[in-house]
């Protein structure tokens, strides 16, 4: 049969069809992750070790996510969700938990990631001789045992609704028992886990290089390699990002975030926060033991102006210990707002002259913040002396309660209990403020005893109100761990703890 259409027409139709096919193919390909590439991230200081026993700082925990992944994870809203563990079930009285693991997961050295491995890991981190920084998180555990090849049963001494959240952090980073056996005390230099990457090389002080783990339980990662580079100087970190030597600056300074927002050159990843900046008051010290003095200190703080001056207005004002990642727990009734007249009156009522010693970490940002506080308190008639200490001295002073008032911050935990129990319970292990209030103790214990979200919301609301009344802490701002990212990096999800999960990240070359 002879065709009824001219040859040229057929050709152009064919060409159009091919063109459309190609276009759709490229369009589809553009949305598809590219394999390969190396991602470099800045650290504030070199890692002390690759062993979770020694993980403390933000830096360390990021390396932990890369190398070990966690039993449970946190979603963008701050909820605890399954990860390597398929599910966690709590008994109605919250005194025991059952953890079910996925099947077929292995560590990068081939060892099975099963209940036995998990139990061994718990025993290791709970052993007082190993001095894990995470020990306080696990203090309510009574017994752990494997009740099946993929099932772990955990019994608590007291109700512990906060327990699942700890498995999204260092306590949930499980190490390969074979590797621990093999390396012994040297494990910290090797670090074998089940995370999306495994250790390739550690050049101390210069960089830690990780390479793709082909047996990762999700699909293997897109990136070939992740490099963590310690850069102590904040200005250098941002300069390196701008010069193209670095892909991601974590925990960026406020002014650099603003600069990035204005220049529109970099992605600004703001995950909200779990963390709070505050002034902690030693309630046993002179002058501040009187509620009027504490109230005067609170009422004379213009935190909006403070936030604008110190943080360029970037963070949210805090009235509670619960950051935005712990929504909706940050609601409170009656936290003192800025009222200079009231502050002055309280100072007058108190009668005696007030001299405050403010202990701080000697870093430039804290120094600036402290001077801001000093100026504001001066307006209410309170004299402040700033005492700069190195971080180690500061921690010691806090632990031994050798201070009057201290500027501090807490990185936050994914469960509200983690942000209050250890600090405000009369038997709390990190109660640095001499806070001893039976009503608070009752509330905190109750918060642990139920998993009912509505119930907990009510309990922690009362905790907030009590804190606003007694003022052991003057809350300043929540701080968000904002990351500044090279626009070629895709696939990052903002999670409120500020850490980056790299398993689905890819680089657009």
């Amino acid at each position, binding site marked *: 049969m002879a065709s009824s259409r001219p040859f040229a027409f057929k050709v152009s139709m064919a060409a159009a069809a091919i063109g459309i096919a190609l276009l759709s193919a490229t369009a589809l390909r553009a949305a598809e992750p590219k394999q390969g590439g190396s991602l470099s991230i800045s650290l504030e200081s070199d890692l002390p070790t690759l062993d979770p026993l020694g993980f403390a700082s933000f830096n360390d925990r990021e390396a932990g996510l890369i190398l070990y992944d966690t039993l449970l994870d946190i979603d963008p809203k701050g909820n605890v969700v399954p990860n390597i563990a398929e599910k966690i079930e709590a008994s109605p009285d919250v005194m025991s938990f059952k953890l079910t693991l996925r099947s077929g997961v292995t560590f990068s050295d081939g060892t099975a990631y099963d209940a036995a491995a998990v139990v061994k890991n718990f025993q290791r981190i709970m052993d007082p001789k190993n001095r894990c920084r995470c020990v306080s998180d696990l203090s309510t555990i009574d017994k752990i045992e494997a009740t099946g090849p993929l099932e772990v049963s955990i019994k608590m001494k007291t109700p512990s609704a906060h327990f699942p959240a700890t498995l999204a952090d260092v306590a949930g980073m499980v190490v390969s028992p074979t590797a621990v056996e093999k390396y012994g005390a040297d494990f910290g230099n090797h670090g074998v886990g089940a995370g999306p990457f495994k250790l390739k090389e550690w050049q101390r002080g210069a960089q830690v290089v990780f390479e793709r783990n082909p047996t990762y339980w999700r699909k293997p990662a897109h990136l070939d390699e992740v490099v963590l580079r310690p850069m102590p100087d904040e200005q250098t970190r941002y300069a390196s990002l701008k010069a193209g030597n670095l892909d991601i600056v974590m925990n960026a300074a406020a002014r*650099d975030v*603003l600069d990035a927002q204005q220049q529109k050159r970099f992605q600004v990843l703001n995950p909200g926060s779990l963390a709070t900046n505050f002034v902690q008051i030693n309630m046993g010290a002179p002058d501040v033991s009187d509620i009027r003095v504490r109230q005067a200190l609170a009422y004379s703080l213009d935190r909006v102006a403070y936030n604008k001056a110190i943080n360029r207005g970037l963070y949210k004002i805090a009235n509670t210990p619960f950051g935005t990642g712990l929504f909706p727990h940050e609601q409170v009734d009656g936290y003192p707002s800025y009222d200079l007249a009231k502050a002055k009156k309280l100072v007058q009522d108190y009668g005696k002259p007030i001299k405050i010693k403010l202990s701080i970490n000697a870093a*430039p940002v804290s*120094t600036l913040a402290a001077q801001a506080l*000093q100026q504001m308190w001066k307006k209410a008639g309170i004299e402040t002396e700033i005492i700069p200490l190195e971080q180690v001295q500061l921690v010691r002073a806090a632990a031994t309660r050798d201070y009057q008032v201290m500027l501090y911050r807490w990185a936050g935990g994914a469960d509200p209990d983690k942000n209050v129990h250890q600090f405000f319970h009369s038997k709390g292990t990190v109660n640095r403020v001499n806070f001893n209030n039976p009503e608070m103790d009752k509330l905190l214990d109750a918060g642990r005893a139920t998993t009912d979200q509505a119930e907990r919301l009510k309990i922690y609301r009362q905790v907030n109100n009590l804190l606003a009344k007694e003022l052991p802490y003057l809350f300043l701002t929540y701080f968000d761990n904002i990351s500044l990212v090279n626009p070629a990096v895709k696939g990052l999800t903002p999670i409120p703890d500020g850490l980056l999960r790299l398993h689905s990240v890819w680089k657009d070359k």
Partner: protein
Amino acid sequence: MASIADVTPIARPRKRRRIELGVSLALLWMALVIILAVLAPYIGIQSPDEGDFTEVLSLPSAAHWLGTDSLGRDVFARAIYGAQVSLTVALGSVGIGLVFGGTLGLIAGYFGRWPDRLLMGAMTVLLCFPGIILAIALVSSLGPSVGNVTFAIGVIFIPAFARIARANTLSLRSREFVLAAQALGARLPRILMREILPNLMPALLSYAVVMLGVAILAEAALGFLGLSVRPPQPSWGGMVATERGNLADSPHAVFIPAAVMFLTVLAINWLGEAVRRLFDIKAQSL
């Protein structure tokens, strides 16, 4: 063919007017800085410690001649009070180095043998400590204050002065006029004071003047590490360290203390050059 004059430099009067302009400017600047620093509490400048949060990092204006810093404090006032710190630290630390270091070096160089070995050994031990460690140790244990910073930097300077004094004393010790004085039976103090010391001074003083500038910069380095005076007391180094992150959007907060520090050290160095030229002429007439 080249003549002796090519190799032997002689002062050329033609250039004197240009040199004197530089010296005059330097003297003027130093006078300005010193007068403002000394009279600071008495003249009507603003307080360096009080800030207005609504005027953070504002540009120079009628109200704030050099603008405000991160906490809304007047940069002009802080620069002047910072001058008090820098000048005190500079003079104090160089004084300590010159007096103690120079004396020790002189003794070591003149007497030789065991006093030399002992003193130079002690100097070497001191020098073995990287200065920064000594500074951190001293300032951390004694506390940050102008006095302690001066002391720490002064101690760091002692070995350098001692070595220069010793090196030059060794050379001078066997010179004719010293041997002549000894032959004439002059007593030790006279030899040290009248023969050696005056010839030591040019080298020591020109080094001292250079070190004045170095001391100001050392204080800046300590400020960079957060080890200088206690806040809210301003120091030029501390101001640069605190404000340098604002380089992109508010450069004035960093540039002004940096510029003031730069001009002051520049003026000191320029004046030092003039002092050296003075001694050059003196040395020529020896």
